[in-house]
């Protein structure tokens, strides 16, 4: 039963990491910083999911990246592109719509 639940939770959360990442990275950030920000914000995301995801979003043109070598440890900084930003806005709109729809469904069945 636990495995079933965690499978469904994972399904449900999968897309939210994309929205959250594109939203957070409107100000540039690197892998670990984003991981911290997301987990502080309450998103349960694993490092081994997030790092490959960032590269996929970059390949899709939703993020750009740049190496920052000013500090002792060179880091790859990602930033949301215009396209990424507009997609994130659409996804957030969809999220709000779904939230409303689920709420309507729940209250509707109760009433």
């Amino acid at each position: 039963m636990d495995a079933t639940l965690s499978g469904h939770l994972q399904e449900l959360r999968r897309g939210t990491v994309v929205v959250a990442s594109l939203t957070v990275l409107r100000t540039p950030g690197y892998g670990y910083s984003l991981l911290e920000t997301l987990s502080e914000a309450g998103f349960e995301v694993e490092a081994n999911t997030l790092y490959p995801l960032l590269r996929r979003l970059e390949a899709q043109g939703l993020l750009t990246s740049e190496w920052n070598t000013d500090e002792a440890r060179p880091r790859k900084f990602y930033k949301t592109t215009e396209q990424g930003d507009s997609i994130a806005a659409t996804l957030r709109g969809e999220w709000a719509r779904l939230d409303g729809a689920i709420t309507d469904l729940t209250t509707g069945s109760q009433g």
Partner: protein
Amino acid sequence: MNHLVDRYVTTALRRIPEQQRTDIDRELRASIGDAVDARIESGEAPEAALESTLTELGDPARLADGYVGRPAYLIGPDLYFAWLRVLKMLYSIVLPVAVGLVTLIQILDDLNIGKVIAAIVTSTLTVGAHIAFWTTLAFAILERTGPHAPLQNTRAWSVDDLPRHEPPGLRTTELVAGATWSLLLIGGLVLQEFTFTAVPVLDPANWTFWWPFLIVVLLVRAAYPFAVRARGGWTRATSAGNAVLAVLVGAPLIWLLASDGFFNPGYQRIAELVDGHVKTWMTTTLIVSVVLSTLWDIGQVVVQAERNRRAVVS
């Protein structure tokens, strides 16, 4: 301590295409470094911090698969069972037949028990390895280029893409098995000229026409059912084509057998048998088997075509 990081990163990078490695290498090391620093800052011992960071990142192979996003397998779930069925069928039918033939030739050639056992063992291993290799290669290519390949799914799906119900006689398994059988016959025909025995078993004089002719017809026969399936299955016209091909293979074989032009007269065991009953018996058996298998082949396809026709009419 860095030793562990090196091992982790190298393991992950091994599974990633060359041109992406440098960048992922740097980024992964930086991310690990950041995570370890954060743990040390919150009071963990350096070594424990590194270990728990890597444990949290998990299996490097899984991480690499996440980066690459392409299938890391030779034959996927769509084709796995077809592959397994073909292999089982080839191992249970073709392998014994091939080993039986080689053994028979060896017995005819020299009834030395050591040599016979050696022939059985080596032919089992050789034919077995060939069956596994070629079947797997064919399916691996099918996996990457066939209708199952993910690359072809970029186009929008329409109802026309619905696979036709694969009629009996034209299932992928049967087609591949049939083609493999034809290819093995060709292989046997060519190899017997050079290996197996010191002198070829079959008449080398036929290389001027009949053997090359049979090779060409067998190749066409191997490919023909695939073409028929692509056009939607057996019809009267295509089953007639199949009959012509079957006759083109069967008739020359029967004629060569009947006119003593099949076996190599220079092959001494056959020469010894010329006057005996054994040769007549062998030739008759072979002629009967060729006739029966040709008729069976023609018949079952005609039946299938007739069924298809009625299914369309009704």
